[in-house]
């Protein structure tokens, strides 16, 4: 899509992100409720939310703080969970590195799973044209605002959401909604199956190392399957698959 101007690209970014907001709200609510139930003040909770800007790391940190874990353990675990951002950063770098620092630094702070999922393919295909950074900012800023406001709503609601609603299940469901449409070929499917299976088996590993182990295992599986299929493609030409892998 070619955009008339920066505002048009930004607005389309916001619009593209909007369908993901219902998946974010319960996640944010739960985070806000959880922090409040632990006795954290609204100011402290929102400070944490602004500094982390990472839901899964924040949830896990809250859980560990609740269990009176060592501060160092909390920091290391949260950062391990966020290791995936290094990989996102590497994959976006070819498209963003030329921008001035005021752009790259704010884009980096605002980088989320959702914006990455929405923008990475569009950035690499070049379809966004010269206003690509505004499209990214539209998705990223809308996501940031939705997240901050839903945590705030959770803080205000406090412990008033009954446990029986099982609102926590909305978290894996929203990840599922991001994951499933991404499974476009055998290699990505293999990465997901292996990553998920290892995560299930490694649930008892300390420091949430299961998540990191599983992610690496899944990536290895994806690359191996891609190599295998490349080997087959050497005999029969399979241009469709090659295109798919991009």
């Amino acid at each position, binding site marked *: 899509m070619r955009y008339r101007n920066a505002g048009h690209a930004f607005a389309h970014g916001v619009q593209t992100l909007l369908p993901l907001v219902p998946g974010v709200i319960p996640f944010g609510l739960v985070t806000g409720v959880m922090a409040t139930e632990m006795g954290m003040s609204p100011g402290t909770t929102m400070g944490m939310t602004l500094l982390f800007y990472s839901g899964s790391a924040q949830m896990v940190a809250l859980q560990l703080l609740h269990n009176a874990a060592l501060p160092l353990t909390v920091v290391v675990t949260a950062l391990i969970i966020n290791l995936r951002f290094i990989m996102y950063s590497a994959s976006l770098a070819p498209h963003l590195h030329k921008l001035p620092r005021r752009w790259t630094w704010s884009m980096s702070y605002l980088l989320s799973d959702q914006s990455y999922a929405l923008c990475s393919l569009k950035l690499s295909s070049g379809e966004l044209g010269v206003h690509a950074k505004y499209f990214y900012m539209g998705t990223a800023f809308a996501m940031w605002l939705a997240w901050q406001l839903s945590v705030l709503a959770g803080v205000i609601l406090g412990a008033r959401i009954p446990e029986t609603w099982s609102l926590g299940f909305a978290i894996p469901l929203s990840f599922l909604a991001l994951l499933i449409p991404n499974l476009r070929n055998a290699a*990505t499917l293999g990465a997901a199956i292996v990553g998920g299976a290892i995560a299930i088996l490694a649930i008892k590993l300390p420091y949430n190392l299961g998540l990191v182990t599983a992610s690496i295992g*899944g990536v290895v599986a994806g690359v191996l399957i891609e190599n295998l299929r490349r080997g087959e493609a050497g005999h029969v030409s399979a241009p469709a698959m090659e295109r798919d892998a991009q």
Partner: protein
Amino acid sequence: MSDLALWGLFLAVGIGTFAMRLSFVELYGKWQMPAFLERALRYVPASVLAALVLPAVVYPPGQSEWVLNNPQIPAAVIAALVAWKTRSTLLTLGVGMGALWAFKFLGG
């Protein structure tokens, strides 16, 4: 934990996370990523997302033991089918939560 220690912890995670988000955008050109790593990156989202989803579905909240009667599993299967067919986050969430409540109700 004291308030000061708590804020120190938040700041440490915040700065660390920002550094990771910025890492390659800042380093680009100064350190070229090996082609192999670049290829591997394509499988990160699927792998990480699945690693977040599956344990959260298979194990009941706050537990790490397998239980037989877990309404989350059939609810997630239905939600996955909806996600596959519609690609809609809203529908996936709505149907998934509805299915969970229904299975809980049916299961007592």
